């Protein structure tokens, strides 16, 4: 008997007695700041080590990026709004992004409850962009912020994308004596630039 048949047979044989129906899942209300979802998102994102600024406060995202990361040699952008130092046609494999200083990506949505942003392979172009880069800059429309995780999981991306990922702040670890380090293995910082209007 194959391992598959063997396992499934044992699982059937050892099935716990009883009904164990699947409970309906209620929609839980997410407490949102009086000023709205953006304020909540901003607060939760910052608590998770992320930063937030608004496109209305800058001449353009690229001038802001150059000012914020003056030593950055390679800004690799996956969005049409920001010019890219690296031509996407030149990227042959995931490792080719290892020298990127700043990656720029648009998020599918933001989650006010947790400060998370969602990407799929469509936004990242090459998935390693958001991990091999030293810093990550995320463009997010204010109207794309949903209240909670339950709302976020209703998005069709989870049924269609090959890869979907929530980033909640930058790469972090507290594995040595609980001292919090940003840039454990992935990006050292994550900044969300809010654009668009409701």
């Amino acid at each position, binding site marked *: 008997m194959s391992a598959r048949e063997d396992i499934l047979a044992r*699982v059937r*044989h050892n099935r716990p007695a009883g009904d164990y129906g699947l409970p309906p899942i209620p929609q839980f209300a997410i407490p949102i700041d009086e000023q709205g979802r953006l304020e909540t998102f901003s607060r939760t994102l910052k608590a998770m080590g992320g930063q937030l600024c608004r496109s209305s406060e800058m001449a353009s995202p690229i001038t802001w990026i150059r000012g914020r990361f003056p030593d950055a040699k390679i800004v690799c952008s996956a969005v049409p709004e920001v010019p890219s130092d690296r031509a996407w046609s030149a990227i042959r494999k995931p490792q080719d992004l290892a020298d990127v200083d700043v990656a720029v990506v648009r998020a599918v949505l933001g989650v006010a409850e947790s400060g*998370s942003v969602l990407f799929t*392979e469509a936004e990242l172009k090459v998935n390693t962009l958001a991990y091999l880069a030293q810093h990550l800059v995320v463009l997010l429309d204010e109207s794309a912020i949903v209240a909670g995780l339950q709302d976020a999981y209703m998005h069709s991306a989870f*049924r269609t994308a*090959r890869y979907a*990922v929530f980033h909640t*702040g930058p790469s972090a670890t507290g594995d040595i004596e609980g001292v919090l380090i940003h840039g454990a293995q992935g990006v050292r910082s994550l900044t969300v630039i809010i654009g668009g209007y409701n």
Partner: protein
Amino acid sequence: MSAANVLHPEVIGDRFEGAKDAQGRPLVHAEGTSKPIRAHTRHEPQPRGARDSGNRPVDQVEAAERFIAATEHEKAHDERLWDMRLRRDQAAHALPEWEDMRGLASRIKEHSLAHLDTYLGQFEAAAKANGVVVHWAADAAEHNRIVHQILKDRGAKSLIKSKSMLTDECGFRAYMAGVGIEVVETDLGERIQQLDGEEPSHVIGPAIHKTRADVAELFARTLGSDPDDEDIPHLASIQREATRPLILKADAGMTGCNFAVADTGTVVVCTNEGNADLSANTPPLHIASIGIEKIIPRFEHLAVFLRLLARNAIGTPMTQYTSHFRAPRAGGELHYVIVDNGRSERLGLKEFWTSLKCIRCGACMNTCPVYRRSGGLSYGATYSGPIGIILDPTLNRRKYSSLPFSSTLNGSCTNVCPVKINIHEQIFAWRKVMSEEHRLPFVKSEMMKVLGYVLSRPALYRAALGAADEALRLLPHFVLANSLNTWTNKGRDMPDAPSQTFHAWWRENRGPKSNSK
């Protein structure tokens, strides 16, 4: 910081050394602490875990005594885990629906486990339709063989991986070393443990028992850094720079699986470092190892578990990264290895099957007074702490027969469990199993015989109690605190005896005067 939240003031540091926000205030997320905790361990060697007992019972108590004797390690460990417990409480109390969510999570898991054949079938069919290659492994050996075959067929010589308790359970690294494949752990804590030849001591903080001095010494030994450099951001950066080239040149990547969503065939992985995403997305091949109990029906259920998991583990609303792998990326390969390794047998154990609900948050360890003061490695098993006590005997009943006795049965583990596993009741039930199977340690079993005889005879019990109290008052310390007394030989003193027994007090104050029974 309130004094009640501090267990050992002497290990509280005077400044935060970690990441701060734009206003310069210390940030508290990932596994970072809410107060600086610093052991002064320059001259205190790291206490090691349980001695290798082969297939004989692990001596957890002996290893725990050595951990307790390393006072700085023990205090810092205790303080850090308690800090995680406090952060968990804060996050839990902030959600009014917390208890409802625990109930839902428990019921979703029970439902999934009771219909596991259906959901495993659904998961497999969906994954195959998405272009994933699905393998089934009955046990650890088969898991390792399957992964080795996948690598061999593609000429892969090196593999990067994110932390996975399942692969630890399978002895995966040791197996791969034997067949000449280089395995590199990419989680900082797990990498530290790999370099030191130790198992993870905690499900989410693999190196939580180590101090900065231990890590500095280890990195000097294995990565060639300066042994006197105890700056933690620098130590973390040494590991980042050392691991990055290994990530870029790896032939294959591997992750575990926190949740497997049946109707879409999706594998969900939670990390704080983004190392699962690096492992899965950089090399052309991604292998995910999945325990059969990780199955949940749909995405709407995932929301329930993810809202509980990070809050209960470390007190944050989410882990830094929550990654969903549904299909291989263009030009890449994705393989799932679905592993049983004793889980289907556990499903048939009436008293113990609900331990399969566990989502590996580690909260039961953080709250356990025995675990906090003895360290995860003292259990000598892949899974330690309260959840380990009830999982390990299903993997090897003889070897882990003494673990159920490493508990005070205070029930705190059960109270913090996000999926409502009755952990302390299962610990007690395992004691009964071990007793019935004559697996009790000798002194404990002899004591139990005497106790059983006395407890079954009320008059003898009362006489014995009075005599015992009298003995406590009169006998010299060395007679009471002898090596057969399992209370005092663990560094504890006998309590002062009351002046009279409860029965004597009741007769005098409440009982009918004529009743002199």
